[in-house]
Structure formats: C-alpha cells, structure tokens
C-alpha cells in the first residue's frame, strides 16, 4: 500500500536536452493517493508509457524524484520497489500451474508455505480462478492469463501499487466487459493503488477514479471522468475523450454573444477572452446538440447519418465546418437541412485551445 508522489519529474531520452521538444516527459508534479485508481490516457507518443516505466523503476528519470509513502525511491531498481505490473501481452510462467504461478512471488520472498496457501486461495477466489488452480498455465485463454498476472501482484501483502500497461489489448470485446468489471471489483476489495495506462478512453474512464490526460509529454488535465467529459480544460481533451469527440468551431465572442459566421448564439454567461488570444473557439459535445428540436435553431446541412446501433451520428455542416451530432437510435431526419440547437450549459469557450472560465 503506498501513496506515490512525483516531484518535478521529467525525462528525456537525449543525453543533453536543451529545448522542450527534447523531453519525452515534461516536468510534472503529481500525487497518487493510496488506494486510488488512476489512468494515464493519451495517444501513442504522449509519454504515458515513459511515465509508467519510470514508476516501475525500469527507466531512471533525467530529473526529479519519486516518493513512495514519503520515501525517495528514485534510485531503487524494480525489484526493490513494491510494485506489480500487468503487461500488454500476458506474461505467465508456462511450465507452472495456475497455483504455482500465483504462489511464485511469495515463494521467492520465503513466505511460509501455509501462509502462501491461504493467500493464493484468497486471491484465486477474488479472481474466480479457484477451479483452475491445478491447471497448467500454458493452455489457458488470454483473459485467464491476464487474471493470473494480476493475481501475482495481488498475492503480495506488501504490494504498494499495481501498474497496468494496456492490459486489455489482446482481449476480445465481450471478455473486456467482464474483465473490466472484475478489475473494478478487485480494486474495491483490495484497496491497492492502481495505475492504468491506455489509449482507450472507455477503459480509462470506467476503471479510474481520476484520469490523467497526456499529450506530447505533458499532463493536459487531471479529473474525474465526469469532469473530463463535461468541462474539458483543453480542446485536446474534448477531442480525445468522447466518441465522437467534442466539436470545436471557430467563433468570435463578445460578452455573452458568440458569432459563428453570420449566425449568433447567446451564451449562458458573459465570457472575457484573455487579451492577445489568437484563436477563439467554441466547444460543444455531440451529445449536447439537438437537431430539429427548436424552431429557431441554426440551419445546418446534413451530410450523412451513421448508425452505431446504440445511437446515430449525424454529420452536419455549419458554415463549411463539420459537426457531429448524436441522435437517439430511433430518431429520423428528413431532408438535407436541419435546425441545430445546443445545450448552453455545455457550450464552452476556448482561447488558444484552453478553456476560458466564465
């Protein structure tokens, strides 16, 4: 069990970094509370894997420190850190049974056999692996193997944090639902700190209490799933979270009036853009736009409608700018023109990509 703190942490793969672009990870400060579930979310190359490797002791940071429960562990090697890790591809000990796999970390730490047995059975119960304890690990399915990997972390009483590196990559969609739910339950039961790296927003949002959105080596926003969805601090967060992502439209804003080309929208509050801002944009999620809901809506051109099964995505054009609109599965649009209205509570103003608080 551990609280993890990152202080002024940064990393560059170059020996003498001189400019910001040399850094794979730009200086950051963060605290991960004991027992929390955190997700590092971002596209490939955003630095999330570098950060995970630093926490797991595999990569030594170019600057800054890591503290586990207040103790500086920056220089410690992986085996001295009390962490466990679940990898993208299942790592199990082929020749051993499920039981032996789960017992392995304890055996290596010379835990008495009776204590090992009790602990292995407890963890097997948590993971629904009780009936498979006697099976050879080699013949198991990918999702079972990932559960064993997780189990090897959970058996250790001293484990401070479990790190997950895109663990559901090789799992079929149906199995993902079960595994995610199980992971969530295990987290609630075990009270262990979890750090979960992924590029998949659904995984990040459902598993974590706090999601850390990263882009280009920087943390763009830290927040609960709801905060990230409802108040993206940056247009990148709006784009990256949500499927389809937030619509971003170039606009002019004066007081509580936003002007998009010849159209005008009244905001629910007056907004003052910071002086010298080069680019003012409006952000609105597809979920908060309605087509043909109000007679005074802005006319838009309907390009096409995609059916995702659960809902439909209407691709429309406003002043030549593409917008996505989410419609219920039974909704119908007739004709090429629709009237668009927005939920003003969820309409945000961005200056040079950053949210303008109103």
């Amino acid at each position, binding site marked *: 069990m551990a609280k993890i703190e990152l202080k002024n942490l940064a990393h560059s793969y170059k020996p003498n970094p001189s400019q910001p672009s040399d850094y794979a990870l730009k200086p950051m400060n963060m605290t991960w509370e004991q027992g929390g579930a955190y997700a590092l979310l971002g596209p490939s190359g955003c630095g999330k894997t570098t950060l995970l490797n630093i926490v*797991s002791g*595999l990569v030594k940071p170019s600057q800054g420190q890591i503290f586990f429960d207040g103790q500086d562990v920056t220089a410690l*090697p*992986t*085996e001295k850190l009390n*962490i*466990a*890790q679940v*990898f*993208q*591809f299942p*790592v199990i*000990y*082929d*020749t*051993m049974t499920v039981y032996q796999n789960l017992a*392995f*970390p304890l055996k*290596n*730490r010379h835990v008495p056999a009776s204590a090992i047995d009790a602990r292995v059975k407890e963890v097997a119960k948590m993971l629904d692996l009780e009936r498979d304890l006697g099976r050879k690990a*080699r*013949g*198991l*399915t*990918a999702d079972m*193997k990932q559960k064993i*990997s997780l189990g*090897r*972390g959970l058996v250790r009483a001293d484990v401070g944090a479990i790190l997950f590196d895109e663990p559901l990559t090789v799992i079929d969609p149906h199995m993902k639902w079960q595994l995610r739910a199980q992971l969530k339950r295990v987290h609630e039961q075990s009270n262990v700190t979890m750090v979960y790296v992924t590029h998949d927003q659904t995984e990040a949002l459902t598993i974590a209490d706090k999601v850390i959105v990263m882009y280009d080596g920087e943390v763009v926003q830290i927040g609960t799933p709801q905060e990230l969805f409802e108040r993206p601090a940056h247009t990148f967060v709006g784009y990256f979270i949500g499927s389809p992502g937030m619509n971003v439209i170039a606009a002019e804003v004066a007081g509580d009036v936003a002007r998009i080309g010849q159209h005008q929208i009244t905001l629910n509050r007056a907004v003052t853009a910071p002086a010298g801002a080069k680019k003012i944009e409006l952000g609105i999620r597809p979920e908060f736009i309605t087509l043909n809901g109000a007679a005074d809506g802005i006319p838009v051109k309907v390009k096409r409608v995609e059916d995702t099964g659960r809902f439909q995505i209407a691709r429309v054009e406003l002043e030549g700018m593409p917008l996505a609109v989410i419609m219920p599965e039974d909704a119908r649009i007739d004709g090429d023109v629709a009237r668009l209205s927005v939920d003003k509570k969820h309409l945000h103003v961005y200056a040079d990509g950053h949210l303008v608080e109103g």
Partner: protein
Amino acid sequence: MDKPIDNRAWFLALPVVLIVAFNAIVPLMTVVNYSVQDTFGNNEFFWNGIGWFQELLDPTTDLGGRFFDSLGRNALFSAIILAIEVPLGVLVGLCMPKKGPGVAFTLVVMALPLLVPWNVVGTIWQIFAREDIGLLGWIVNHLGIDYNYTLGPLSAWITIVTMDVWHWTSLIALLSYAGLRSIPDAYYQAAKIDGASRFAVFMTIELPKLRRVLLIGVLLRFMDSFMIYTEPFVVTGGGPGNSTTILSIDLVKLALGQFDLGSAAAMSIVYNLIILAACWLFYTVMTNVDADRDATRVEA
C-alpha cells in the same frame, strides 16, 4: 475441381532422380550387395546370406565384440560431448552481450570455430596438444601432469573431447543466444517484480523458452558426434591401441585396411540404421513438442 494435369512435368523431376540414384541408391545397393556376400579377393564373391549380420550382432564373436566396443565408444563420446557442450553452450549464450558494440564482435568470435574445416581442426589440435612442440601439451606436462595423447588412452580421450567442445560449443551457444533474444523483455521485468532469483529466472523463463531450440541443438550435435570421423582420425587415428576407435574409424579400418568388404558392409548398414532410428526418435519427440504447442495455441 479440375486440377490441371500435365505429365510432362515429370521430366522436371528427372535430374533429381538421376543425381539421387547415382550418389545414394546405387552405392547403397552396392553396400547391401556386399553385406550378404563374402570375398577372398580376385573379385570373387560367395553368398553368405545374413551371416555377417548374425556375427556382427553377436558380441561373443570377434566381429561382434569389436562392433559393440566401437559402438560403446561412440555412445560414450556422444554422451560426454552432449553433457559438456549443451550446458556450456547455454551458459555462453547467457553471457553473450544482448546489445552494444560487443554483439557483432562476439558473434564473429563464436562463429569462427564453426568455419574451420574438419581436417584442419584435427591438425590444429594434433599439433597444439603435442607434448613436445604443442603449446597446450607442453604447458600441461610442465605443470607436472602426465599428458600424452599418443600413449595414454585417457589423454587421447581428453584431447578429442576437448577438441569437439572447442569446435562445436559455439553452435549450441549461438542457438541459445538466438532463443534467448526472442524472449520479450516483459518476462524478465515480471520476474524481477515477482522477486525471482537469477536461477529462478533461468529455470522458469529461459529454459522453458529454450526447449525447442535446444532440442534441435541436441539433435544436430548427437548426429554429428555419432558420425564423427575426420577430427579424431587426424589426431589419434583411433589409438592408442583401440581406445579411441569409434565406429566410423573402425569401419574404415575394416573396409579399407583389411578389405573385409562383407563384414564392413554389414556394419555400415547397421550403423546407418542406428542413426536413422535415433533421428526418428528425435523427430517424434520434436513433433510432439510442437503438437503440444499447437494445442496450446488453439486453446489460447
């Protein structure tokens, strides 16, 4: 379902058929022919049926005794070199650098012995191990150890075993190295996290992953050591006495030294069958390992 059939295609196989016929089937048939006959020279042959085979497989006869002695030496030689080369090769493979400028250098050094022709290897060691002018033999003798491979059977054995180890350990080392390189880093990292000792990492990760590659290595080394001829012939010529006379050397003595074509032919056929049987055994074991893996893959 109408697969195009053109019988002229058979002509394409003709060159292969001819080559195989001339270099394998015809000589083999000659040997089979010799093995059921006896000759006293003058190119006169007498029918002997399975007489040679009976004598050969009966350890109480001269021929049989000699055959089983040589076979025993062969088995001993193969067992010793496998027992040394496989663990040593794996150990070397484990020690070879995984990255950096050392990789290319190590690979070249390791490949060197494999590139030396057999008879040159024999000659090198014949000179190197001589107690009078050979560096190795001279040093060992000056350390007070009695070592002379032309007089002492033990010295002779040590020499040919050391020579084979020098020549072929690289092969196992390179195979293991390739096998080890294919293990993803995540496995090592997981083992570190699980607190596994270096030995546990070897037993639980490296050895299981090396299983297939080592089977191939053992097969190659077994067959090759069982058929070895040139190097020990150059170094010891089968001596001192008969102490290093293995089957291949014995066979040459019998056929070309004594011109006992019949018994030599019978011996070579039995020798051949033993190697074939060993190959079949290895093949079966290896395909079973594969089938095991395939079954795993389908389940996974």
